[in-house]
C-alpha cells in the first residue's frame, strides 16, 4: 500500500519511419518523450494537451497497446509490483485485469457485428472471470445495469444505440474485469453536453464505489477541471506542467498552460469579457523535427532568456508543493 498504484518514469515512445529514395534517412516522431508521473489509488490524473501532443499515444502505451522505447511503468495493484514493460507471463493476466481503457469514438469502439452480450462479455471470457454461459450472462446484465442500461439490451447491436449509450457500453466493458485503473481517452468528446454530464457523473460515482483510479485524457480543460485531482499538461510529447489540479488551474505557471487556459471558452459572459487573452503565435511545430531546447520556445509569449530557452531543454522542477513546471522562468 505504500507504493502508488501506477508509477511512470522517463517513459519514451518514438515512431520511426524512413524516407528518401533508398530508405536512407530515418525520422523519429517523438510522440511521448521522457514522461514521468505517479498515480495513487482513488485519484484521477488528467492529461491535457492539444492534438499532436501525444496524449493518446501516452494512453495507449500505458495500457500496453504500444511498447515503450525506454523508461518504466510499474503497476502495484496489491502489494506486489509489476513491471509493465517486460512483464512475466503469469503477470500478464493480472495486468489485463487491473488496467482497462475506454475509447473516444462511440462509433468505432464497439464491433458492429457483435451483440452487446459478446462485447461486454469478451473480457469475462478471455480473462476467464466467469464460468459458463449463464454466469457470463448474468454478469453482463449486472454491468449493463451499473451503467444505466437495461437487461434486454444484451441481444442488441451497437447501431441500435445512441452515442451516449455506446459510451456507456464501452464503460461497462472496461468495468468487466473490475480494474483498479481505467484510462479514458476523450470519453465525452463525441457526445452532447447533457449526455456528457450523465457520463461524467456516472464515472465519478463508479470511482467512489469501486475505489478506482482514472487517467483522464482530454483536450477539454473544463471537463478535466471537473474530474481530475491532478493534472499534467502535455506539449509535443513532453509534460510541461504537472501538479495538483486546483493549484495548476488557479496559478498556472508554464506559458503554454496560461495560453491554454486563456483560450478556453468559459460559459460565463462576464468572465469572458474580462478575461486576459493570450494568443499564441505560430502553429504547432512538426513533431518529427521539434524545436531545439525548450520545445515551446517558438511560440512562447514570455521568453525570458532567449539563448537558454533555445538551447537547453528544461526539466520538471517543483516550484511549490505538488506543483511542478518545466520552464526556465522558474529556475
Amino acid at each position, binding site marked *: 500500500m505504500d507504493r502508488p498504484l501506477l508509477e511512470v518514469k522517463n517513459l519514451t515512445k518514438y515512431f520511426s519511419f524512413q524516407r528518401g529514395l533508398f530508405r536512407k534517412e530515418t525520422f523519429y516522431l517523438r510522440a511521448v518523450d521522457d514522461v514521468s508521473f505517479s498515480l495513487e489509488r482513488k485519484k484521477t490524473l488528467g492529461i491535457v494537451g492539444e492534438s499532436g501532443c501525444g496524449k493518446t499515444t501516452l494512453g495507449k502505451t500505458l495500457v500496453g497497446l504500444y511498447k515503450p522505447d525506454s523508461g518504466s511503468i510499474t503497476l502495484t495493484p496489491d502489494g506486489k509490483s509489476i513491471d509493465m514493460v517486460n512483464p512475466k507471463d503469469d503477470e500478464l493476466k493480472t495486468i489485463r485485469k487491473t488496467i482497462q481503457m475506454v475509447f473516444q*469514438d462511440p462509433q468505432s469502439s464497439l464491433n458492429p457485428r457483435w451483440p452487446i452480450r459478446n462485447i461486454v462479455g469478451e473480457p469475462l471470457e478471455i480473462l476467464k472471470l466467469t464460468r459458463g454461459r449463464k454466469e457470463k450472462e448474468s454478469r453482463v446484465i449486472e454491468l449493463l445495469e451499473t451503467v444505466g442500461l437495461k437487461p434486454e439490451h444484451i441481444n442488441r447491436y451497437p447501431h441500435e444505440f445512441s452515442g451516449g449509450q455506446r459510451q456507456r457500453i464501452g464503460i461497462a466493458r472496461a468495468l468487466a474485469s473490475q480494474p483498479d485503473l481505467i484510462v479514458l481517452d476523450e470519453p465525452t468528446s463525441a457526445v452532447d453536453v447533457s449526455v456528457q454530464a450523465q457520463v461524467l457523473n456516472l464515472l465519478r460515482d463508479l470511482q467512489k464505489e469501486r475505489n478506482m483510479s482514472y487517467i483522464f485524457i482530454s483536450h477539454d480543460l473544463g471537463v478535466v477541471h471537473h474530474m481530475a485531482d491532478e493534472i499534467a499538461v502535455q506539449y509535443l510529447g513532453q509534460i510541461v506542467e504537472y501538479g495538483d489540479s486546483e493549484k495548476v488551474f488557479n496559478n498556472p505557471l508554464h506559458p503554454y498552460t496560461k495560453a491554454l487556459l486563456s483560450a478556453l471558452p468559459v460559459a460565463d459572459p462576464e468572465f469572458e469579457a474580462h478575461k486576459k487573452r493570450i494568443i499564441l503565435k505560430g502553429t504547432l511545430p512538426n513533431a518529427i523535427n521539434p524545436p531545439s531546447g525548450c520545445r515551446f520556445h517558438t511560440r512562447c509569449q514570455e521568453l525570458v532568456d532567449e539563448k537558454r530557452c533555445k538551447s537547453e531543454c528544461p526539466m520538471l522542477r517543483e516550484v511549490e508543493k505538488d506543483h511542478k513546471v518545466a520552464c526556465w522562468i522558474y529556475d
Partner: protein
Amino acid sequence: MSEIVDFKKLEETKKKLNRKLYAQAALVALVLILVRMLLISRDNIDNWGLRLAIVGVYILIWYLFLDQLYKRWRDINYKDERNPIDRFVHRLYHNKLATVGLFIVLSVAILALFAPEIALYGSEYQADWKDYALMPPSREHPFGTVSSGEDLFSLICYGSQISLVLGIGVEVIVAVIGIALGVISGYYGGAIDKIIHYFTDVIMSFPFLILVIVLVGALRANPDLNERIIDFSSSLGMDAHLLMVFLALTVFGWPGIFRQVRGQVFSIKERDYVAAAKVVGASRSSILFRHIAINTLGPVIVVMTLGIAGVILTEAGLSFLGFGADITTPSWGRLLSEGNSFVTQSKYLYLALFPGIALFLTILGFTTLGDGIRDAIDPRLKL
C-alpha cells in the same frame, strides 16, 4: 431486482417458443425435401406442362413456408428498431434493376435445381436420337435439336447446373482463400504482407486464358496423364477438362478478393474495438477472425456476386474455344461453339441464339444483383 425476474421469464418463454418454431420448421422442411426426392423420378409424368406446374407448386409451398417462418420468428424476437436485414431487403427492392437481377438469378437457380424435372428429355444419351439431328424449334423440341440429336432445351437446362456449380463453387473457395490471406497480410503488414502481396501480383499477372489453353493442350498431348485425370474426374462426376478449368479459376481467382479484404483490413485494424480486444488480451486468431474478418464480409459478398458472373463468362469462353467442356457436358459455352459453326445459315440460327441468350441473361442477372447489393449495403446511400 424484480425487473431481472421479469426479464428472465421473458427470455425463457422466448427460448421455448423459438425451440418449438425451429422443430416445426425442421419437420416441414424434411417433408418437403422428401417430396422433392420423389419428384426426381420424372419418368412418371410425361406432360411437361403438368411437370412445370408441379415444380411451380413445390416452389410456391417453400416460399410460403419460409415467409411464415420468418414472420413467426420476427414476432417472437421482436425488436422495436428496424433490423439490418429488413433494411437491406427494403433497399434492394427499391432498386428496380437489382430486383430484376435477383429474379433472374433465382430463376436460374431454380432451373439448375430442378433441371431433371424441367428438361424434356433425360440426360442419358439415346442412340436413336441421331435421327432427329438438327431439327428446328417445334412443339416437341422448343429450342430445336443439335447435331447429335439432343434436345437443345434440355441441354440448356442441364447447362445451367454447370454454370451455377462452377460459379458458386469457384467463388466460395476463392473467398475463403482471399479472406484468409487478405486478413493475414493486412494485419501483419511488413515482410509477410510484402511476400503475400508479391505472390498475389505474380498470380494476377499470369495470362490466365493462355495458361488454361496450355494446360489443357498439354493434357491432351499426353495420353497417359489424360487417362488418369479423366478417371479421377469422372469419379467426381465431372468432365476432366472442365475440372481443369475449375481448378484454374480457383487458383487465379482469389487476388481480387484478397486485395479488397487487405485494403479493408488496413482501416479496420486501426479501429478502437480491435484495440479494446487487445487490451483485454484477446488472442491473435480471435482478433483476426472474430473481429476483423467478420467486418470485411459486406463488400466481399458484392465481389463474389460479380465474380460468379465472371466465372460463368470465362468458363463459357473457354468451352467455346474447346478448352473446357467436351462433347458430353452441356456447358452453354460449348453449345454456343456448336451454334457458331452454323451461324451463317439463318436456318440454324437457333443453335447459337438460345445458349447465347441464356449466358447473356445469367451474367446480366448476377451483375445487376451484385451492383444492387453493393448499393444496398452502403450506409451512406440515402433514399
